[in-house]
């Protein structure tokens, strides 16, 4: 057995790859990442450069920058000339986009007279230009290196680089121009412009008076100068300063202008000869644009509803003083979702009815009525109205066919769904969970009942488990419910294993016992030989004293009895010629002797009983019994002597 197991197992493992490969699918390894070598080809490079060239246009710099922004992370060697070219091109395009933005900011600062900001921008521009110039110069070189390395045509790329370099030169010239303008403005007379309003806030469509003063830095008023006042998007008005340098204008904001803070700007842009004398200047003033307030009050009826119930919302829209706002649109939302709108009447009242959607879950929800005030001089307002959605509660009852079972067997769940008043509820479905893990779904029938059969996994652990059922109704206004049952599961493989072990142990024990018995029964019969009997003492020592002495030489009472019996056998053998045989029992011997000599029956019978006790009794032999055996021996001596 050991040899078979020892050879079979290695054999199986040796044959296993061949055997299982026949049924085990293995995906081809040609696409395996770890077996790939880095690959770059000429056609690939050409395609990349050709695609790049399509976006290397002066007006697409930001797009070029976005396309190349990931090149820094590419897992290529830094020695690859193409990668170096792309990374430098990425950096160059990024710098050019920054430069364009900063030039615009600097020009704006100059035009608004903010010389300081313009100076800062100019410095940054100069630094940026210094960083970008070497990039622009290195690009053609890197491209040529790549062309030599990959043996590709880069004529189109070179042309595009020339265009970009031309753009860079243009930016550079603009920077120089900006520097000149800053220098120029630094030699001009500074001016100051102040701006004020008659009120810090204004309602829409109401006029607001703004005014201010234009002076030189030393306080001298500048008269007859044109000041441009602007607000909103492209709304401007011009005003000319008087002898005191004062200017004023009327400003108003139309309906639709965003409420809240807004800026009014005043600018002095020197024109003609003044542009060589005075520095442009501007000033801003913040005012708050307001809308007339509105108030909306509303109620909802009823407040406790179920899905598909009809609900009414009514209210009114007024000014804070109570003046009704008629013909205004009121929008209605439920939890942020629009359900419709209505319009106020001449009294400012509105009424809106709707059906409660059946997609809402039970609980509290909110209806919001909103006056959006689109194109209106009144400000928006709203009101929120809560309502409670109630669902029908259900009860789930589940019964299992047994509370304990073996793994691998089936368990039947029988249940029903009913309302709180006991009425069966039909349809929907139940989900069954075993120890919290989803097991299956069952549909609920028309009578509100369901039946589910679960097969316990064979390997489920021994012990207590739980089966829970959750009810999910089809109707949204019906509540879910759940029920749980407890089970005890016996692990079938474990029981089988234990039973097998016990059976094996029992079989082994039974086998050894049977074998022992069989060994005994099959032992070859020994030829009958006379018992190696007690060697009788010499004839002259058959004396009672001698016999008694021999018996008393034994150590214990049982041995004395056995000795007495053996001496009696010796006397009978010597006196009557009847020797004991090994194959016969002591009672067989008794029968044989007493058949021949009936007179010895009583004594020999009693002595045989005592011998049997000494040989087989589990209890200790007493001294009286040993003495009795000795006396019987002596008596037998006399009886044998008498019959001889």
């Amino acid at each position, binding site marked *: 057995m050991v040899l078979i197991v020892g050879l079979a197992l290695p054999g199986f493992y040796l044959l296993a790859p061949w055997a299982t490969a026949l049924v085990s699918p293995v995906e081809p390894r040609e696409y395996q*990442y770890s077996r*790939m*070598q880095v690959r770059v080809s000429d056609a690939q490079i050409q395609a990349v450069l050709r695609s790049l060239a399509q976006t290397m246009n002066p007006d697409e710099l930001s797009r070029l920058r976005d396309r190349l922004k990931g090149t820094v992370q590419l897992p290529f060697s830094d020695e690859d000339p193409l990668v170096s070219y792309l990374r430098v091109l990425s950096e160059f395009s990024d710098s050019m986009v920054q430069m364009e933005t900063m030039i615009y900011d600097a020009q704006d600062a100059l035009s608004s007279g903010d010389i300081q900001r313009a100076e800062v921008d100019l410095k940054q521009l100069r630094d940026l230009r210094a960083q970008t110039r070497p990039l622009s110069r290195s690009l053609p070189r890197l491209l040529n290196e790549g062309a030599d390395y990959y043996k590709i045509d880069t004529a189109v790329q070179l042309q595009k680089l020339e265009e970009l370099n031309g753009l860079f030169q243009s930016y550079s010239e603009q920077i120089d121009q900006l520097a000149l303008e800053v220098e120029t403005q630094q030699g001009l007379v500074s001016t100051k412009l102040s701006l004020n309003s008659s009120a810090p806030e204004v309602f829409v469509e109401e006029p607001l008076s703004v005014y201010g003063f234009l002076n030189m830095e030393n306080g001298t008023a500048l008269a007859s100068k044109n000041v441009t006042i602007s607000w909103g998007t492209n709304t401007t008005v011009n005003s000319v300063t008087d002898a005191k340098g004062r200017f004023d204008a009327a400003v108003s904001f139309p309906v639709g202008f965003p409420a809240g803070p807004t800026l009014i700007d005043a600018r002095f842009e020197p024109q003609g000869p003044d542009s060589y004398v005075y520095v442009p200047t501007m000033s801003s003033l913040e005012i708050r644009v307001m809308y007339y307030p509105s108030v909306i009050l509303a109620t909802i009826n009823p407040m406790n509803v179920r899905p598909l119930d009809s609900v009414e919302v009514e209210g009114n829209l007024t000014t804070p003083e109570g003046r009704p706002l008629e013909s205004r649109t009121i929008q209605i939302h439920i939890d942020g979702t629009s359900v419709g709108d209505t319009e106020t009447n001449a009294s400012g009242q509105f009424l809106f009815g709707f059906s409660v959607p059946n997609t809402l879950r039970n609980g509290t929800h909110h209806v919001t009525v909103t006056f959006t005030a689109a194109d209106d001089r009144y400000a928006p307002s709203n009101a929120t109205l809560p309502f409670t959605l109630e669902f029908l509660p259900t009860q789930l009852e589940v019964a299992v066919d047994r509370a304990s079972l073996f793994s691998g067997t089936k368990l039947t769940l029988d249940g029903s769904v009913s309302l709180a008043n006991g009425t069966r509820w039909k349809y929907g479905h139940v989900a069954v969970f075993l120890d919290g*893990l989803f097991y299956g779904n069952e549909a609920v029938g028309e009578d509100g009942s369901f039946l589910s059969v679960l097969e316990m996994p064979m390997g489920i652990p021994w012990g207590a488990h739980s089966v829970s059922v959750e009810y999910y109704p089809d109707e949204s206004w019906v509540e879910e419910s759940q029920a749980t049952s407890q089970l005890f599961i016996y692990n079938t493989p474990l029981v089988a294993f234990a039973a097998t*072990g*016990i059976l094996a142990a029992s079989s082994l024990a039974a086998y050894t016992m049977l074998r*022992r018995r069989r060994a005994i029964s099959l032992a070859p019969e020994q030829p009958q030989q006379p018992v190696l009997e007690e060697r009788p003492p010499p004839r002259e020592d058959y004396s009672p004293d001698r016999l008694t002495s021999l018996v008393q030489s034994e150590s214990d009472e049982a041995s004395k009895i056995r000795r007495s019996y053996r001496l009696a056998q010796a006397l009978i053998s010597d006196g009557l010629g009847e020797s004991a045989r090994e194959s016969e029992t002591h009672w067989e011997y008794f029968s044989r002797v007493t058949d021949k000599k009936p007179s010895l029956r009583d004594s020999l019978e009693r002595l045989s009983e005592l011998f049997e006790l000494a040989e087989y009794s589990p209890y200790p032999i007493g001294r009286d019994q040993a003495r009795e055996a000795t006396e019987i021996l002596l008596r037998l001596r006399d009886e044998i002597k008498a019959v001889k």
Partner: protein
Amino acid sequence: MLSIAYYWPVQEPYHSLNYGWNGCSKIADTTQNTTLILSYDQIPPESALLAIIGPGIEFSKSEGFAIQRFLESGGTVLLADDFGTGNGLLQRLGVAARFSGKPLADLLYYDRQWSFPLITDFSPSPVTTNITTVMMDNPSYIELGNSSQLTVIARSSTFSFIDMNRGNEPSVNTTLNSYPVIASVSVAKGMLVMISDPGIFVNEIVDLYDNMRLFRNLLAVGEGSLFLDVAHLSKAPLTDARIDFINAVDSIRNFLLYSMLGAFVQSAVTIAIILTLSIEILRKTRRGQETRQR
């Protein structure tokens, strides 16, 4: 044969019990709360991630319905497919988008070869949190159709192209463009995330770049519970039965080795064997003594 069935490794591509280069055992081990789906009689709970990676078997009507219900209850489905049967499921779910079935490659943004494109263009999304680069493995791309409900989460670079030559040189007229590779769509309360490459999650690739982080973000959307579809993987006929057998043996072994009751059973059997042997030895010894006495 039982030993072969137990010990021979699962080799099906994208299988969560496949520990080889093309298996998905690593993503299965990202959470202890992982369940393998062998059939759609069991629908995951609503707060879970159902990952369908590399499906090769068509989805039945009832299975599509079960997944639809899972989405309606708020579940999250990850469908990662390129040339498989994912389009059938999309059709059953009523999603207009499709996996194009055409191989996508990138001439500039790639690792080792252009069939392993690097994705760096991501839109803000819970799925793309802290992700800068993801590597794909012979992917396809997503055709959006006319759906306005789809949200493109990631796109390939503007240097990517449809590699119909499968790794050979791109043709002169090859058009380079950017293609959507990850998109999501809301279905009722749930979300379906489509990724046009199941290879992004295989053991050999998932630890590169931000691939594993992408999966962990998806798992976080599914609140940490992972249900892996193995029912639709192309596999050998006996694989499912083998897995059942392995699970049963492991269950019994773990019970016997690691439970108190199992220890008692082992002890009882061992004691019974020892007692029997001891009794036999004593009997033999006694018989020998009796023979010598005679």
